[in-house]
């Protein structure tokens, strides 16, 4: 069976959920090989083997953390040349897509981004225009490079050999041009990542001010959810821009999306329409968000949400 290279997204050796999802998907396409790059990469080997990685290609070269994106593409291009895989899968996040793009140019391949499924013939399914249209796309040239959205496949464990192989790459001057001088963490810790969370609770203009966002945060914390926001809320400075859901923010596809005080403008929908279940809380019965909600509650969020939080706490005992 041909190898499928999977670029593992990880934080110092702890893979993100999407990496396990990609390995699970890769098992349906061929023999998964995990590619783990950057600081702490070696520590991920056993973890990715538990999800079916037969081989684990590891590089902890300093250039990978010191310079933006380009060194990742260089290592992957080298692996494609050496191993001749049937496809390369990457997580469809900002960096994953950019690595895929540079790799496509390097190896002269086509690239499909934002897939939610891939068939054994490497036809990728992509929702476009905010989920209004589904397209099936295929790479016609070279080794297919496909970026896959988080939450597209349910990760399941299946032991793989996990044979570790160290990769030594040579980086060009161009790879070392954009230097990462500093990494600053702004998000409050403790909550799951917005793109990966299975539940997302988002607040909009209806929240009224920054302080009131603690109401959605409390609900999110009882559900183990991530917190999102509409652009009206991020533009007003009530919540960080990286939490914006929508066309010019993040695209999320959780099991459950709760929209609180959000009207449901088309640009907001573009980022959440493919959620499995949608709940909306809004005081305006005419709000367009109700057109796509599986359950809509017409009411004042300041009454409904605290009651909901309390009720869930009760039910959880």
């Amino acid at each position, binding site marked *: 069976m041909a190898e499928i290279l999977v670029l593992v997204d990880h934080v110092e050796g702890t893979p993100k959920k999407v990496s396990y999802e990609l390995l699970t998907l890769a098992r349906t396409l061929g023999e998964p090989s995990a590619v783990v790059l950057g600081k702490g990469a070696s520590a991920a080997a056993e973890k990715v083997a538990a999800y079916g990685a037969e081989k684990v290609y590891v590089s902890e070269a300093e250039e990978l953390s010191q310079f933006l994106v380009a060194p990742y593409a260089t290592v992957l291009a080298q692996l494609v040349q050496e191993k001749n895989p049937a496809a390369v899968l990457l997580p469809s996040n900002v960096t994953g897509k950019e690595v895929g793009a540079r790799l496509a*140019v390097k190896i002269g391949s086509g690239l499909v981004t934002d897939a939610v499924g891939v068939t054994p013939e490497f036809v990728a399914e992509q*929702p476009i225009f905010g989920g209004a249209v589904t397209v099936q796309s295929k790479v016609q040239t070279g080794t297919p490079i496909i970026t896959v959205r988080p939450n597209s496949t349910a990760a399941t464990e299946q032991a793989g050999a996990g044979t570790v192989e160290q990769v030594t790459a040579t980086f060009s001057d*161009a790879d070392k041009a954009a230097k990462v001088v500093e990494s*600053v*963490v702004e998000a409050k810790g403790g909550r799951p990542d917005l793109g990966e969370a299975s539940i997302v609770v988002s607040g909009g203009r209806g929240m009224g001010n920054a302080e009131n966002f603690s109401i959605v945060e409390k609900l999110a914390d009882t559900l183990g959810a991530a917190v999102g926001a509409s652009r009206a809320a991020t533009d007003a400075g009530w919540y960080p821009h990286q939490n914006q859901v929508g066309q010019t923010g993040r695209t999320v596809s959780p099991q459950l999306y709760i929209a609180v005080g959000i009207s449901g403008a088309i640009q907001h929908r573009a980022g959440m329409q493919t959620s499995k279940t949608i709940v909306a809380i809004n005081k305006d019965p005419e709000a367009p968000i109700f057109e796509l909600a599986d359950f809509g509650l*017409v009411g004042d969020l300041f009454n409904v949400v605290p009651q909901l939080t309390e009720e869930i706490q009760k039910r959880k005992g």
Partner: protein
Amino acid sequence: MNIVVLVKQVPDTWAERKLNADDKRLDRASVDVVMNEIDEYAVEEALKIKEAGGGEVTILTMGPERAVETIRKALSMGADKAVHLVDDALAGSDAVQTSYALAKVLETLEYDLLISGSEATDSRMAIMGALLAERTGKPQLTGARKVTVDGGSVRIERQTDNGYDVVEAPTPAIVSVVEKINEPRYPSFKGIMAAKSKPLTTLTVADAGIEAAQVGLAAAPSQVVEFANKPPRQAGQVVKDEGDGGMKVAEFLASQKIV
């Protein structure tokens, strides 16, 4: 500092967007079109850098004849001149091919910075900056929420999932910006009048030295094989709060086995 700004004309997101049944490409003819919104932030950033340190701002667009409207808008905001790559041979090019064509045009331009929006609202791939950095061999400074130019170097704050990275590179560099970076100006009446007489160069594939066989739908390295319009999501149950709204929502979540 000379700056090239990439802008793209896209269907208005308020309009219904469709794919053509025959060639499975975006139906650009039947919809209202606008400048890709994030590109306005790119134009604004270029104008601010120019206003602070001098230089020239050149707009570069690849797109059909109609895209000239978008070029005019950028010129009326204050850009100095524009290059429009327009040729039937380019129709249906995917992102990888587009980056090849744009890189060819860039070879003929002198610039210290290339600035674009981080993504377009139609394709949403968010990779043009990375593609062009790879093609030109210039440093990639993408996803910037802040850009600081200092002599021969540029520093950006690159937005990440949980904060930002400070990334630095020598010029010339390839920069893309997110909408958080600034507030784009509206074209003034004077700007709109002035735009009409600003230099606009139109290039064909042959003019730019682009190999026609490398671009266009037939040669696209990635292609749409099939598509289906999804039935719109059906509205579910809508309940009015009678004082027990929170409980009602909790009941629904329990019925879905979510809690």
